[in-house]
């Protein structure tokens, strides 16, 4: 009897590609709690987290043949959780819109609205920090998906100026994000 718990993640992935069930079970054992919690931190709902973990592992099994070793297994799994979480957010947002139309008095949210509102606020704060003109160009372009030409017409400025504002907005956002992101990376390394 081989003890799979002694295998490294990479070895398990190699075995998984050969449809080794025990390798799959070992990965599940190793990552179940971590992934469940990773989802829980952003959903605060254990039923949805079950869906997240289930989905991630089913996809892992279904895609076992094409699993590549270019990214670490842990990275792959945490990212899969993240995508699933955002997928659930998206579903909730669309569902809310739909429910509001059908039952305007009913609140059918399953995801804590705190998260959705916080995400909106997070984006707003970053955009809010931009200079006035820059901000309106950014909003029209990235939130309302208008073309540079349309924005130029709307704000009565040249297309070149629109491009200039946009470049400025994006690079400013980038700087802000790099500052906060590096802090978070440092913290998460610290706590590992």
């Amino acid at each position, binding site marked *: *009897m081989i003890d799979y718990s002694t295998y490294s993640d990479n070895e398990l992935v190699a075995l998984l590609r050969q*449809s080794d*069930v*025990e390798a799959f*079970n070992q990965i*599940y*054992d190793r990552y*179940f*709690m971590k992934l*469940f*919690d*990773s989802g*829980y*931190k*952003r959903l605060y*709902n*254990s*039923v949805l*987290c*079950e869906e997240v*973990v*289930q989905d991630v*592992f*089913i996809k892992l*099994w*279904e895609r076992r043949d094409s699993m590549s070793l270019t990214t670490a297994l842990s990275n792959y799994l945490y990212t899969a959780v993240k*995508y699933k979480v*955002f*997928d659930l*957010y*998206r579903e909730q*947002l*669309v569902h*809310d*819109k739909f429910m509001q139309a059908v039952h305007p008095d*009913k609140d*059918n949210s*399953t995801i804590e609205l705190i998260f*959705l509102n*916080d*995400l*909106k606020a*997070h*984006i707003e704060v*970053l955009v809010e920090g931009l200079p006035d003109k820059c901000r309106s160009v950014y909003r029209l372009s*990235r*939130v*309302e*998906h208008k073309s540079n030409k349309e924005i130029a017409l709307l704000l009565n400025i040249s297309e070149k100026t629109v491009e200039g504002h946009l470049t400025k907005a*994006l690079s400013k*956002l*980038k700087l802000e*994000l790099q500052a*906060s*992101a590096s802090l*978070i*990376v440092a*913290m*998460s390394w610290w*706590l590992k």
Partner: protein
Amino acid sequence: MDNIQLAELLDRYIKGTCTPEEIAIINTWYNKYQNTPGLTETLSPIQNQLLKDKISQKIQEHITGKEIGDIKPHKPVLRQLWVKIAAAAIVIVLIKMAFFNGGVHTSDQIQSANNEIRLINRTKNIVKQVLPDSSMVWLSPNSRITYATKFRGKTRDVLMNGECFFEVSKDAAHPFIVTSNHMITKVWGTSFRVRDAGTSASASVTVVTGKVSVTKKSIVANAKATPKEVMLHPKEAVVYKEQADDFHTELNADMTSLDIWKRINVSFDNAKLSEIVTVLNKKFNANIRVDDVRLNDAVMDADLTGLNLPDVLEVLKASLRLNYELRDNAILLTPSKTNKPN
């Protein structure tokens, strides 16, 4: 930014068509919650195990359903793991023992050096455990079970005390044998119940479907039926009286107490707990009571398809942050106490 705009942004994020800045914005936000507490650290080891097993089972059912053709028959481990629960036989073993009245409210699982797992349920909940052959067992409060980490040899042997419900995966080549205080119950690929009440009282076995054999503990269990072995068919029961040291067969057994193990097909959409409890009581012929009126208004969405009552209670526990307690013949729902660290 409204909901639809955010939904569109997330849609592009998932499809990989966001700009690098947008990706950075979303990732930064996501990472903000990296160090907030998760759920598993607030659960006991046994609760974590339950959660893990439950999801594992769902994953395996899903994979089995889709890839049944992938199963390689020459690999026994695969066959064991992907056994469909639909093909499972059901066994209930009910034995009441006198010596587990301790006040400790935890479950412990001990894996001893000789590769045996001993599980003792000291909670007031029903605790579920998956056995090496993917059979499942639900332990009532104050019950214990012992089995090998891997079933080897010709039989699947389980030793138990207390009250247990088994869903045994079908494997005719390896009989499933439950040894309890008074008797030995052998599954011939079916569903049935064993009830063994106390050291001084009686024991019984009730069959739901298929065939089961029961032998008195004093008789050595053989793989083949001996004259002392009682064969039971559906809706039949055998009662063992310790005083007489003998079996008595009942041809029309009362099956209502088996209802909590039925798997139901119900889902709730934005339903109040009080409504859910009413439906569950009817479906399971149970006596669930909400102990605290504040819980009645708790609302949940839940898909309870394919769950039995103990499974349903686990779902309620997790999603409504409540707890339950088996008291006499009732199930009391109580608000969850503040999570204690493990």
